[in-house]
């Protein structure tokens, strides 16, 4: 308990099992004011950047996919698009649509997991998904069904649901037969009802009402809700091509973390992920999802990070409906992939991983051998914003019990859905009062 004397309080928390990440939060407070706050996460992609050097471009999508067990499609998609841009590969429209379907599968799988297994227990006073399953079994079963349909899409296009391998530069190694898609279509029809029910479920949660001054950043496409393509836009006026990412954003080392912090050049932290996408692309959702969104009572753009859980549910509906639309319009392409000829140069691409923009940059020689690679995952870009969020939250933590303070921090961090491999086993929370 805080005391009136100058004391030091240290709280150790081995929680945050539902945010993957070796996370530690250190908080120092003086006279009720936060004087120091450091949020540390472990970040493995640097290992992969080194591993990719000297490999052929054709190997990159599969190697990059191994970074994350939850969003392998995102890693494959950003890698494939970066090389296609560099090698001037033309993608068949049917292949382009299949890639969008591939991404729908990953959004469904990741969002269903996050909503039901990771975030919902926070808002329903359950310590874990197991407790929630005892209380709300049908909702948990619905979440697992939705996740399973997402996995089925990934397995069909990627060859398997865990660590898919199907995407390559130019397209896919194999494309599905119409009969395979028809089987999926039936499951999607049921998933649509499940996703709509999920929106209604989370819209009934009692979410904290905390509005922050946030710069939201996401892709924006001329006509679609963004997945694989689009310009980079922000709520404070950024509008640049993907190739200009490094002109608008910068990464910098901070002493307390081995992850790089990212910020908008000349400004500060920024927020990536479903809430950013929806705030910046509400007019691309289509009438059905827009109507569902309005019915939740939240007005978009929303600056309350806790509304992210509702936005994930709305994106679930979008992904299911979009997957059905793609399947209904599907005509097999003449070939699963377009050939490519390597050339020397630099290729960059950003795609919308479930948890936000994933940027990759590759430099190759004329044979297509990778000379350097840069991978900037959404979780590391969000890290400075997570710190800003926690700094705003911190003064209110001091009057709380250890358990309650930890729960509030976990809930706030979980809004960003920090990536599995970009994060691991627990958060250690230290609060020191001086």
């Amino acid at each position, binding site marked *: 308990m805080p005391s009136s004397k100058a004391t030091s309080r240290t709280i150790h928390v081995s929680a945050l099992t539902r945010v993957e990440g070796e996370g530690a939060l250190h908080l120092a407070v003086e006279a009720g004011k936060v004087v120091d706050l450091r949020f540390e996460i472990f970040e493995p992609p640097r290992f992969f950047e080194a591993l990719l050097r000297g490999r052929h471009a054709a190997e990159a999508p599969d190697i990059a996919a191994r970074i994350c*067990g939850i969003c392998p499609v995102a890693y494959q998609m950003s890698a494939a698009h970066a090389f296609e841009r560099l090698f001037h590969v033309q993608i068949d429209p049917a292949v382009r649509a299949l890639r969008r379907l591939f991404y729908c599968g990953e959004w469904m799988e990741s969002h269903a997991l996050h909503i039901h297994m990771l975030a919902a227990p926070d808002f329903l006073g359950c310590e874990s998904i197991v407790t929630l*399953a005892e209380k709300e*079994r049908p909702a948990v079963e619905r979440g*697992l069904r939705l996740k399973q349909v997402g*996995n089925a899409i990934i397995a069909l296009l990627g060859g398997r649901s865990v660590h898919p391998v199907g995407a390559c530069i130019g397209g896919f190694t194999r494309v599905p037969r119409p009969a395979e898609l028809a089987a999926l279509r039936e499951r999607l029809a049921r998933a649509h009802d499940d996703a709509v029910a999920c929106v209604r479920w989370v819209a009934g949660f009692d979410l904290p009402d905390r509005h922050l001054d946030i710069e939201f950043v996401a892709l924006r496409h001329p006509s679609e809700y963004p997945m694989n393509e689009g310009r980079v836009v922000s709520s404070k006026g950024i509008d640049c091509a993907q190739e200009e990412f490094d002109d608008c954003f910068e990464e910098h080392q901070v002493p307390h973390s081995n992850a790089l912090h990212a910020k908008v050049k000349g400004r500060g932290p920024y927020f990536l992920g479903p809430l950013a996408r929806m705030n910046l692309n509400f007019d691309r959702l289509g009438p059905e999802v827009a109507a569902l969104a309005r019915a939740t009572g939240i007005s978009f753009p929303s600056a309350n990070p806790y509304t992210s859980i509702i936005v994930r549910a709305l994106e679930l509906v979008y992904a299911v409906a979009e997957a059905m639309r793609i399947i209904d319009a599907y005509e097999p392409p003449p070939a699963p992939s377009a050939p490519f000829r390597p050339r020397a140069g630099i290729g960059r691409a950003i795609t919308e991983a479930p948890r936000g923009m994933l940027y990759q940059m590759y430099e190759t020689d004329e044979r297509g051998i990778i000379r350097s690679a840069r991978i900037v995952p959404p979780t590391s870009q969000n890290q400075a914003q997570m710190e800003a969020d926690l700094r705003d939250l911190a003064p209110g933590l001091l009057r709380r019990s250890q358990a309650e303070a930890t729960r509030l921090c976990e809930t706030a961090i979980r809004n960003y859905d920090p990536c*599995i491999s970009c994060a691991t086993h627990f958060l250690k929370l230290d609060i020191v009062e001086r």
Partner: protein
Amino acid sequence: MIRIIGIGSPFGDDAAGLIAARRLAAAPPPGTEVIEADRPGATLIELLDGADAVILIDAAHTGAPPGTLHDLDLYDLPRNPIALVSSHDLGVVEALRLATVLGRAPARGRVLAIEVGSLEKAPQACSAVARAASEYAVRRARYWAEELRALTVESYAD
């Protein structure tokens, strides 16, 4: 049917479960299906569906010498202080408990956990871990596959 599930990321010592599963998949014990599951998280629940028994092979970090093989009953896992390192997204223990609550867990199973030397990512597992995975864990999995198959047949006979 008995399902053998290898869990882990493909790099460094965390790959132990995958190394063992790959070796077993080359010559699966009778009545088994072998899956290399990477980091399945909540998908583990789907992987348990329809199995009479399961053998999970994963990496562990308890402080024992690298390459030590821990062999325990599936249902002792939640009570055991063993920390499975590849518990990304939903942990193996949590996924198992959830499957149990939802009535989707198999009646019986074993966990073979290989002690890691390091949690750092590296291109290969260290030699002690690789050997424990490809030899000891494989041998143990074959033993348990036979035992579990006998038990499964018995319970059908009941």
